[in-house]
């Protein structure tokens, strides 16, 4: 499998395990395989490329998309149907409401010539969503082979360990396969793999080396790193394009790119500014400081009375009730009772703004209780605008 080795890097052992599990086309495989590992550790990619290159009949379904049982089952069946029927002719949509129907229909479909005598694979990506669906679904999928009496293997892909899946009624245990995180060497190798054709592989590898040096401490997500690599590469090449440095002049290139990458870490990585904005910045060569990130706009304008309601809510949320007397008797009348004509409306609008949240049960009809969810900094800023010294009234600051 030389082709496979070229496309799937640093996952040799997992690939060989899977291959041996799959066996020959007509062999019965393990009824269910559970693959887990961190984000971007190649679970989906490895499974997909493996199944594709081996040309095994398979169905790939993402469970996020199928938020109801019906959608999930129908999608699997339709895709299977598509596989089994010859090219071109599009058979009618299958409707399937229950798992029972599913088993029946599944049997029907796999009778087809093209699917006979070989293992059919059903891959359920983001399998953690299965836990929120009907309780019988997961055990059902786990022993699908037994239920349908067909040569079928269900592969679950998840970021969560199997122990958290296990239903308390007990179930058939799948084969569990762990994908460990990529090491820095692995990352280097994978990232260097997709170098642009204009530049030599060494040049790109050097760039990746610098990139990892900056970002590895904060981010090990391969997807994210790849994204960052693509984004910042033009900047790295700039001296070369301009003719100021040769491709081998690593030191100079490093000096050019390093501060830039650090800036990127503070902005793009945190999605403070979008990648398109970042690219524009690179083109114009302006200072990113001018472009304010999302978090820079924390200021919220509120009507005058709403501010007071919010302050009062904050005090009520964070001071113990027994201290009320102490605060408000001493500074008697400091908080004037303003005529809140539209008090109720305002509270609801504050709730919709997520500054207050409803606590307590939904069914509590009279006197709903709210809690103030804003931060201290926020409330201080609000209090300052209405000349109210909130620190004086807070129990924690006494």
């Amino acid at each position, binding site marked *: 499998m030389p082709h496979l080795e070229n496309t799937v890097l640093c996952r040799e052992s997992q690939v060989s395990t899977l291959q041996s599990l799959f066996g020959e086309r007509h062999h019965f495989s393990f009824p269910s395989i559970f693959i887990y590992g961190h984000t971007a550790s190649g679970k989906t990619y490895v499974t997909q490329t493996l199944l594709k290159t081996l040309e095994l009949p398979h169905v790939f379904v993402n469970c996020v998309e199928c938020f109801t049982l019906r959608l999930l089952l129908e999608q699997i069946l339709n895709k299977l149907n598509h596989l089994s029927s010859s090219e071109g002719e599009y058979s009618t949509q299958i409707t399937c409401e229950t798992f029972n129907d599913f088993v029946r229909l599944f049997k029907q479909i796999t009778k087809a010539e093209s699917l006979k005598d070989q293992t059919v694979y059903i891959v359920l990506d983001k399998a953690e969503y299965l836990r929120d669906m009907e309780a019988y679904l997961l055990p059902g999928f786990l022993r699908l082979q037994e239920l349908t009496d067909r040569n079928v293997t269900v592969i679950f892909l998840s970021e969560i360990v199997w122990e958290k899946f296990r239903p308390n009624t007990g179930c058939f245990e799948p084969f569990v396969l762990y994908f460990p995180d990529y090491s820095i060497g692995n990352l280097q190798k994978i990232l260097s793999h997709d170098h642009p054709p204009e530049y030599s592989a060494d040049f790109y590898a050097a760039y990746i080396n610098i990139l990892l040096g900056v970002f590895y401490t904060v981010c090990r997500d391969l997807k994210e790193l790849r994204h960052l690599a693509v984004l910042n590469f033009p900047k790295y090449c700039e001296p070369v394009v301009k003719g100021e440095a040769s491709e081998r002049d690593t030191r100079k290139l490093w000096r050019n790119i390093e501060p830039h990458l650090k800036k990127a870490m503070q902005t793009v990585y945190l*999605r403070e500014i*979008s990648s*398109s904005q970042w690219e524009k910045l690179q083109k114009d060569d302006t200072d990113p400081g001018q472009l304010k990130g999302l*978090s820079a*706009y924390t200021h919220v304008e509120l009507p005058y009375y709403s501010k007071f309601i919010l302050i009062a809510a904050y005090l009520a949320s964070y001071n113990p009730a027994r201290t009320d007397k102490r605060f408000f008797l001493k500074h008697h009348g400091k908080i004037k009772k303003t005529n809140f*004509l539209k008090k109720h409306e305002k509270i609801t609008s504050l709730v*919709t703004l997520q500054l207050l949240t409803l606590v307590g049960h939904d069914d509590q009809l009279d006197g709903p209780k709210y809690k103030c969810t804003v931060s201290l900094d926020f409330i201080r800023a609000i209090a300052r605008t209405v000349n109210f010294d909130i620190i004086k009234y807070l129990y924690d600051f006494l």
Partner: protein
Amino acid sequence: MKSETERLQEELNKNLFDSLIEFLQKSHSGFQKNSRDWGCQIKLREIPTAALVLGVNVTDHDLTFRSLTEVLQNNVTPYVVSLQAKDCPDMKHFLQKLASQLMDCNVDVQSKEKESVQVTQKKIHYSMDSLSTWYMSVTQKTDVKMPRKKRTPPSQWQSPPVVLILKDMESFTTKVLQDFIIISSQHLHEFPLILIFGIATSPVVVHRMLPHAVSSLLCIELFQSLSCKEHLTTVLDKLLLTTQFPFKLSEKVLQVLTNIFLYHDFSIQNFIKGLQLSLLEHFYSQPLSVLCCNLPEAKRRINFLSDNQCENIRRLPSFRRYVEKQASEKQVALLTNERFLKEETQSLLENLHVYHTNYFLVLRCLHQFTSSLPKYPLGRQIRELYCTCLEKNIRDSEEYASALQLLRMLAKDELMAMLQKCFKVFKSSSEKQLGNTAKRIEEFLAQFQSLDAEAKEEEEDTSESQSKGLQKTDLYHLQKSLLEMKELRRASKRQTKFEVLREQLVSFIDSLAREYLLLPETQPLHEVLYFSAAHTLRQHLNAAPRIALHTALNNPYYYLKNEALRSEEGCIPNVAPDICIAYKLHLECSRLINLVDWSEAFATVVTAAEKMDANSVTSEERNEIIQYPLKSVLQCPSIYFSSLFSLHFPVRTFRAFQRGDINQSRKHLDSSSFIIVLIIRNQKIKSCKRYIQ
């Protein structure tokens, strides 16, 4: 006339919104291009997203979004969908709404040819898959049709993007949002989606709601709309601080409106409504408001004034004051001769117009001078200055004095900048009346500039002398020369040209204010243009709904003006609306009420009204009547309404009522002989409301 002014006003509002939309559109068109680029780089898989920070005035957002949708539909893509959080409690509803709206968009474009297909499609469970296949089919179809149809130019793209507006991003459930973003990012290459988040608070909320894994799927760009305070300033500037519209507000009215705005809701929409209300009220209550229109029209109308209206003019307090100041012959003429009166009115109106022109120019000018002073003695916004000017003679106020004091201490470059701005203000107005002033300001500017040059020369002089002085090595001489220099400087300080000039400038400003910023009340005929009934306005805008309802129920005559309803105290007219009768009966019992008694009493009153024999009424009918009060209370639509009755029922009874099972509930009442507690007008409001809904 009324409608004319209103229309003008509406147009202006539209202008305002248009400018806002233009800004949005601009940002979006750029954005669109970006999204096209992104489309090519599929591997990055980011959904282009616009975070639209709109401020907390949620009531205004609807309009903004509506116009935004319109603009987008006209210029960018036919597929614009806007969703509200309350429509999408979960993924299923979310997609269903999205799909149905999308298909509707499409139907509009394709002249509703497939309505029958629509109906069947609505039953299907939507998934992103079906959506994208639908999208593919539609775009392919339109591609074929394109050459025949001649659509708007920007939508000639092969695949117009689908714009999804989430109106209130804060209230969406995080899970739904996250899932949706994950799903749609997977389908992005076949379903080009653009998200627009409407954010009321601050953009940080995006981070708070979405974990990094999800937000990394978005390519967010931020757009900040005008803050509502700025918006208010523009509205005021365009509507009130201009001679274009003759209608003006008095200080108190303006205060009421701005207070409602600043203290309560921050809603421009409401502000404009208040403005419109005051406009209406003015035209309704002031008979001479016919003259409240532009000057030539007003002059024309004066010629057609009836005797009665002339009499009205004579009765105006400001006009009377004016007459008293005139010579006696003229007084007589004014009071007796209609034609003379009309001519005089014309000239007075003209004066008033000129007064306003000057007034606003000088006001703006003064604002330029005072708006950047430390501590803002006259306010930061021009509306504050305007309010003070309307309230009392500005020159009498302490703030004005302190502002002038501060002006006397300003440095030259600051003054220069202010003067420049002022000059621009005068230049921008086409009016000739204050050309003189503009010239004066120009002169001041020139003088300051020449001062600059002179100062430089002087500086050179001093530095020369300094260098001379320093050449001497003798310590004694050095000291002496230094002392000399110091004295020289002090002397010059006492009377630099700059200070003299500054003094002149300040007194010039003062004279301007004295001359032009007079109180509107001092102007004759000001009543024609100024609306001053702040009290009515407050009553209308800051209404207390509960009191209004109480009045309506207790004394229906107050609102209905039906003679039959006029009643003496303590008696219940049987012709009154049923709900009034029920209410009045329930008022008669102070704290506790027996529901059965109440119903019976109601039935008695009503049957008496219809002058029916008790016998002739069948028992069924009577039953119906008896049950009416409870039914009516339980079905009343408004929370305030039900709160007036504030009933506390056993839940079983309520449920029975809700089911419409009157007999059942009556059985509950009878068999267990509940005494229904009625806590009048205070508690259990919400519980009532909840049950009723």
